[in-house]
């Protein structure tokens, strides 16, 4: 792995993290990352990306929307347009 640089490991990062790779490939990537400051930093930021975006996009349902929805649901039932 190391003789071909960081690119092959970066390409397989998700499979690597999800345990989808052969033991051989997995340890080749782990060995490369352990000795490569760039890959160590890249892996950290690759892992952080979903977490950062999850926090940044968390929204709660506003109470007025919930009330509107329930009103619509009841209206639909009342209208007899059932399944």
């Amino acid at each position: 792995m190391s003789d071909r640089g960081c690119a092959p490991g970066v390409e397989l990062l998700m499979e690597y993290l999800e345990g989808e790779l052969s033991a051989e490939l997995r340890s080749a990537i782990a060995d490369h990352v352990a000795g490569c400051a760039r890959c160590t930093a890249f892996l950290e930021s690759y892992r952080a990306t979903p977490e950062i975006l999850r926090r940044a996009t968390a929204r709660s349902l506003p109470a007025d929307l919930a009330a509107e929805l329930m009103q619509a649901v009841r209206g639909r039932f009342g209208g007899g347009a059932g399944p």
Partner: protein
Amino acid sequence: MEALAEPISDEALVSRAAAGEEAAFEDLVRRHQERVYRLACRLTGDEADAADVLQETFLQVFRHLGEFRGEARFTTWLFRVVTNAALMRRRARARRPADSLDAFMPRFDAEGRLAPTPAQLQVTSQIEEVLDRKTLAERASAGIARLPDAYRDAFVLRDLEELPTAEVASVLGIAPAAVRQRVHRARLMLRGYLNELAEDKA
């Protein structure tokens, strides 16, 4: 001693609702409305669109209650309806095509080594320290909106809603390997996008 009542399953509520029990459908709505809205916000990047998707989703679920056969989990079916409604909503907006995020894919030198230095690569992880919450929330939604539709759906379900890869595959009707490939590409693009935002600010 009285045994604790088992919470009624989604699937049982669907059967009751399909049989005309109004309270059962209301229970389903109350149980899932928060998650549906959050997912809709993440898929559309717009709270007004998400409100429409929320209503549309439960209307579709109500209309098709009788077609739910219980082969899949109710939530798998529900998330599929949300994902489709969000896609329709995005298309209805007919916005100009989003600027591609391809430029944010990682760059390598001639030896296949990552081009940026470790310090440059680390900046992404510090974005919450350099951008205020409101700005980051806006930029996050804008970035996710720039993903190709197929990548966005897979990324939002897998990484933001944290569904297992196999369930995302069921929701989207694609193979787990395809989910991993799309999520991986989305992560690479968004990692680079966040990195540039953080560097601009730092």
